């Protein structure tokens, strides 16, 4: 809600086992940001915001 660039899905793994397999989810909640599993378990909001920013940094093209 804080930024229109951010979309968030809650995925019920029992109904979508193929997704659990795709990301090799061993525990819940497992949080995937831009197709990479980054967190298993709970984390404070501020830390999670930093994880989002890190994911954005990684996604930027490398400048030559």
């Amino acid at each position, binding site marked *: *809600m*804080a*930024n*229109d*660039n*951010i*979309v*968030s*899905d*809650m*995925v*019920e*793994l*029992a*109904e*979508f086992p193929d*997704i*659990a397999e795709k*990301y090799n*989810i061993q525990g*819940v*909640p*497992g*949080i*995937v*940001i*831009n*197709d990479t599993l980054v967190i298993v378990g709970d984390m404070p*909001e*501020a830390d999670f*915001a*930093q994880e*989002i*920013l890190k*994911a*954005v940094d990684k*996604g*930027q093209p490398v400048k030559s």
Partner: protein
Amino acid sequence: MQMIADNVRAQLAEILKTLTNEVTILLFTQKEGCHFCTLARELLDELTALSEKLKLEVYDFSKDSALARKYAVDKTPAIVLVGEKDYGIRFYGIPAGHEFTTLVEDLIDVSKRDPGLPKNIIGDLAKVNQPVHIQVMTSPS
């Protein structure tokens, strides 16, 4: 089958009195191969009956594929929460157990048009200048 027990229903009706603006819940279902679509419909029917601020719109994933694409919905049951705009909040699968609480909290946030985050976090998230897709994997509880 009644999905929301009477005592929970009464509590929920009280909580939903705090809703300020309308929230539209879009549910995408399909006839074939969606074991939980009917239950999701029943749950949302019961939930939306508890507040005039909640509107439920049910769509067919195949027949309404253009709308499904618009909301980037790729599986069913899919629940999309929309306020005065789409905030990018989706639930895939039936939001029962703990996920039901999350759904209600999200409905309240969307109704307020406010994610309820501290200012410093809002400031950090404002820096996000490219698409971010978060998927929170949960299990029934």
